């Protein structure tokens, strides 16, 4: 079983040390990714989604420190690797697609050079071959007249085209794991759709595993097989995408689902925003991070952190209501399963 996991995060904790104090951005996060799988990570901004992966790849800003845990890639712990070993993995075996195509490209370097760069670093190929491959990659992400555009600068491209370049840059070495960090957030809706379609096509053509980070559950649903829900630096729930929409196993997920529109929704039904605001990560609440906004909160939730427990074979949830000694009466999850059991 472990060999099947291409990537696994175990008990990762990361903090940023600012002049105001320690910001606990990621707290005890664990999940795994199987070969060829597409995993979605969903959560609002500041929930620790990106930081989890930046930690694993050693790309944190200077103030960020990994406090503990493991990031296993093909069984090897990236956090225990030297900077040099990590560099050999980055860009070659694990690639990242970043959010903002405007700022992710160096404005003073040509598109072609930037796409080809990873090849120069990780392979011993000759110049002509590198150029040929880079052009082929640009064609693969549907850049028209790729050979001609090779020597263009980023400012000569539109936002959607730049995001294609960013994707090309990530895929050029044929990585076995691609981490796409909000790749469509900064784009117009129509362009978003084009990019998502492109990503799905590329995924079909390769056997890479993909982590798709987004705050948009609808985008995740269209891309991923499995999803991890993060809130306040912790994982709240992990499930197959269908299960998650069918029967969310965490109050936060329930809130999340209620706040997005659905096509066949009853016209009279209201979208409900989740009340309140995310916790202050400088001084996170001692219990569940979601307690202040949770309609199902119990006294225990404010005091001690909920256990992360398996709810079924494919899913886990971090909620006190799943605890063995949690009362069934008034318990949204246990009442539901009790009803299933009766039926």
């Amino acid at each position, binding site marked *: 079983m472990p060999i099947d996991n291409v990537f696994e995060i175990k008990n990762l904790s990361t903090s940023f040390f600012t002049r105001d104090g320690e910001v606990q951005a990621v707290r005890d996060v664990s999940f795994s990714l199987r070969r060829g799988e597409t995993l979605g990570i969903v959560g609002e901004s500041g929930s620790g989604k990106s930081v989890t992966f930046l930690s694993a790849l050693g790309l944190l800003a200077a103030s960020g420190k990994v406090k503990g845990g493991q990031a296993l890639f093909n069984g090897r712990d990236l956090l225990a690797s030297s900077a040099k070993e990590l560099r050999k993995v980055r860009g070659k075996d694990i690639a990242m697609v970043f959010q903002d195509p405007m700022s992710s490209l160096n404005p003073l370097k040509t598109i072609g050079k930037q796409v080809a760069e990873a090849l120069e670093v990780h392979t011993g190929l000759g110049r002509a071959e590198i150029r040929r491959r880079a052009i082929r990659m640009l064609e693969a992400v549907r850049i028209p007249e790729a050979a001609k555009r090779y020597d263009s600068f980023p400012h000569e491209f539109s936002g959607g085209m730049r995001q294609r370049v960013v994707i090309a840059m990530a895929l050029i070495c044929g990585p076995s794991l691609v981490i796409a960090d909000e790749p469509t957030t900064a784009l117009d809706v129509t362009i978003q759709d084009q990019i998502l379609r492109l990503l799905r096509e590329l995924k079909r053509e390769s056997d890479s595993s993909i982590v798709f980070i987004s705050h948009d559950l609808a985008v995740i649903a269209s891309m991923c097989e499995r999803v991890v829900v993060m809130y306040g630096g912790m994982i709240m729930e992990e499930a197959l995408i269908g299960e998650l929409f069918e029967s969310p196993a965490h109050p936060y997920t329930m809130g999340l689902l209620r706040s997005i529109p659905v096509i066949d929704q009853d016209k009279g039904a209201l979208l409900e925003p989740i*009340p*309140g605001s995310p916790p*202050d990560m*400088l*001084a996170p*609440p001692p219990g569940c991070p979601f*307690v*202040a*906004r*949770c*309609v199902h*909160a*119990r*006294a*225990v*939730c*404010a*005091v001690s952190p909920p256990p992360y427990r398996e709810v079924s074979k494919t899913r886990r949830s971090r909620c006190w209501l799943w605890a063995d000694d*949690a*009362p069934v009466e*008034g318990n949204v999850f246990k009442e539901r399963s009790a009803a299933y059991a009766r039926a």
Partner: protein
Amino acid sequence: MDTNGSPWDRLEIGDDSMETIASEQRSFAQDVWYRFSRRPSALGGAVVVVALVLFAVLGPFVTGHTYFEQNLAFVNIPPRLTAWAIGDSGRYAYMTQNLKLVELSGEGRLLAPIPFAREDLSRKLIIFDYAGTPVSIDYSDRTAGLRLVGPDGSILRSRRLWNRSYLLGTDSLGRDLLTRLMYGARISLTVAFIAAFINLIIGILYGGVSGYLGGNVDNVMMRVVDVISTIPLTLYVILIMVILDSGFLSIIVALSSVYWVSMARVVRGQIMALKEQEFVLAARTIGTSPLAIVARHLIPNCLGPIIVTATMLIPTAIFVESFMSFIGLGVSAPMASWGTMCNDALETMKSTPHQLFAPATAICLTMFSFNFIGDGLRDALDPKMRK
């Protein structure tokens, strides 16, 4: 929370126990002061500036000297003296640079010149008459240098004393350096504050009009600023000073007529950015007059950068004033500014370095202080600009 209840009691949203407000609330001014005072350099700068103002305003009343009073008997006296004991009288003699003797009291006060008697060329002695006792400068020994010898030809005992009459010594005309330094501080600070203030007003008006009106007016006005700042502003100040002739007023006029361009740029940039914002549109929709929009909505909102730029104008003005004085375009004698004092001392730097170091240190200290205050204010007023 209720400690007696079960852990499974329901919590209500908005329960006080759930949410705490992380930081205490402060007013804007308190916030600015809090951030400013947390920087030791900024606070230190502010303390030094206050001390400097007191030094300039009150100082001349306590030194017992005036800035113009000359005492040709006591020229070029340093703050630290070599005192030669005259017998057991408890009195000392100090040898000036032009080989005269001055009587010193035991605590280092300059009393009176000791009258010259005659020069003994054969024994290489310059003989002075101290109340009947001959005291001589012995210049016979080249290697040992000049020494004072008593009537019997023995070398007098010597010790180092602080100059009590003139704490920082005197200049080449026998004027008290400390008093002149204080008057210099008055001139330099007055010039700096007035020039900064005038530049502030012109800059706000010019930049405000340019930024608010925008379009072609803005284009023309900013092109004028561009042309002006093509050549160093110091050059204009020099030209204007040449026309107006040196003097206190001229330097203020000269400084005020060019340095507003930087302020105008800052104000314009800020206004340009602000005027598109919703609150200005809102003000316009309800019919607020343009003047009121600029005065009540735009200027107050870009006060931070304006204050910082104005603070930074003060050291610039001090620097340019001393620069002008240094190349002979400053205030006219006997008035003193730090720049003219440096200039006066340059020639004799080798023999009387104290005359140069006192005003130079004063200039540096002031520049430091204002720069630190400016940096502190920048951080305090605009946390976004923090690095």
